[in-house]
């Protein structure tokens, strides 16, 4: 199994703050890597570095064996191979659901309008949103908006999907519909890196769980190892607090 994504000793700082420190990670094809950790531990920054929204200060990032942290790389071309879903959806409010989904396939990937619409409609049907195609995003519930955002990132058939706390802005009832959409993707074999606070969900989809603390992975392993039998005292402490908050 080849690695879709590989990070080697990645370092990122904002001014004097070191946000990611010698962070290494390998994501094999068809697997899901879940990043957990307190707010500010570097999860989002890590995802943004992979997407080249941030320039790393050291280390290397490989996508399908190609070093994308090379300044000579065409960032647009790299991003065409990645999908990203944001915590705050970031749908375009002036476009309908269907237009949101087909924008990149048509403008960036050169698909015909019919082709893009057909594909988008299929995806919408699959995620039970077929009747919302012509609505504007503001008319949808949070969960529906986030599912549209997921479909939008899927519409370009990415090699790797990055999901940044996609349920953090949703209420618990809506969380489930989004999580079940992500579970579907996982069973389709989509390669994913997710940052999440939903430990139960992490157990279900993760092939590997990485616990981040101050920009380093201090514990990694299967969900059973990290979430149910953590070795590092900091992981234990974090999970205890999560447990007290009733989210495990």
């Amino acid at each position, binding site marked *: 199994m080849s690695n879709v994504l590989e990070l080697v000793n990645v*370092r990122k*700082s904002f001014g004097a*703050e*070191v946000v990611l420190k010698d962070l290494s990670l390998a994501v094999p094809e068809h697997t899901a890597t879940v990043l957990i950790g307190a707010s500010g531990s570097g999860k989002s920054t890590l995802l943004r570095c992979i997407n080249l929204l*941030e320039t790393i200060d050291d280390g*290397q990032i490989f996508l399908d064996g190609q070093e994308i*942290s090379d*300044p000579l790389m065409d960032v647009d071309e790299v991003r065409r191979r990645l999908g990203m879903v944001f915590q705050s959806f970031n749908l375009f409010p002036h476009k309908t659901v269907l237009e949101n989904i087909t924008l990149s396939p048509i403008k960036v990937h050169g698909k015909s309008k019919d082709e893009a619409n057909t594909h988008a409609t299929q995806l919408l049907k699959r995620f039970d949103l077929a009747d919302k195609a012509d609505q504007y995003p503001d008319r949808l519930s949070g969960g529906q908006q986030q599912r549209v955002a997921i479909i939008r990132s899927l519409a370009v058939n990415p090699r790797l999907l990055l999901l940044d706390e996609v349920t953090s802005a949703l209420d618990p009832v809506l969380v489930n519909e989004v999580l079940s959409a992500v579970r579907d993707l996982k069973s389709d074999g989509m390669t994913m890196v997710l940052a999440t606070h939903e430990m139960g969900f992490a157990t279900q989809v993760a092939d590997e769980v990485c616990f981040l603390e101050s920009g380093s992975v201090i514990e990694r392993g299967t969900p059973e190892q990290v979430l149910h039998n953590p070795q590092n005292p900091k992981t234990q402490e974090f999970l205890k607090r999560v447990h007290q908050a009733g989210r495990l």
Partner: protein
Amino acid sequence: MSEKQNSAWSPSSRELERRKSRQSISRKQAGIAAASTILVLGTLALILVTSPGWETVKATFFDIDYGREVFPTVIQGLWINLQLTFIGGAAIGVIALGLALLRTTKSPALTPFRFLATAYVDIFRGAPLILIILLVGFGVPALGLTGVSSNVIFLGTVAVVLTYSAYVAEVIRSGILSIHPSQRAAARSLGLTSGQTMRFVVLPQAIRRVVPPLLNDFVSLLKDTGLVSILGVTDAVRAAQINASRTFNYTPYVVAAILFLLITIPMTRYTDRAIRQRTSAQNSEGAI
């Protein structure tokens, strides 16, 4: 939560390589920029200087000695434009804010004023400024009212203020309307009255949002003060006109234009910077 910069860290050889690569990219880009600039501007200058009418153009528009001679009178005129801009600008700010507040108010008691404000904005935004200047500048003195000044500078300022208040009111109003209703909801649920909500929550955000377009209007205000010259005010435009019609050499107009540009170009640059800073301050999405 992150640790402070670790002084033990030194960049890896790959990172050093990458920095070198980035440097060479930016050197290459600077080279391309320089070459393209020299090529394009050089060609334009060459076309200009070698064109057949260039000598006549130079003598008619760019007579340096004559320019020097008229400079003092033109700059004296410009001082009038600047005074008009700043005094008028202050009055416009106050009136426009009042109009914008009236147009956005929902208070039933103020309904007639809301209608009046809307009518005012419709009329003065829709009518040409030059027409208003003529109406106020020549029309008001013709009334012969006691206690109303017939000073043309004053009347010219009034005309400009009348028109620009309508423009600026619309800019401020669009800023007020652009503030998300959730902000109002949050403020009202904290117990703030609707007036307090406007004063402490909505307006501060709205004004910040419309500063760039307001600066834009300020620049055009400065330019449009030149229009009061039709009333006989000896501003920069009028001073240039007097000199140009005396000799049929149009250098004074060029001098006036350059003086205006010396003020407006830095102002527009500043506006651009204000817009950029506003966008980057609100945008945490990094440098994309």
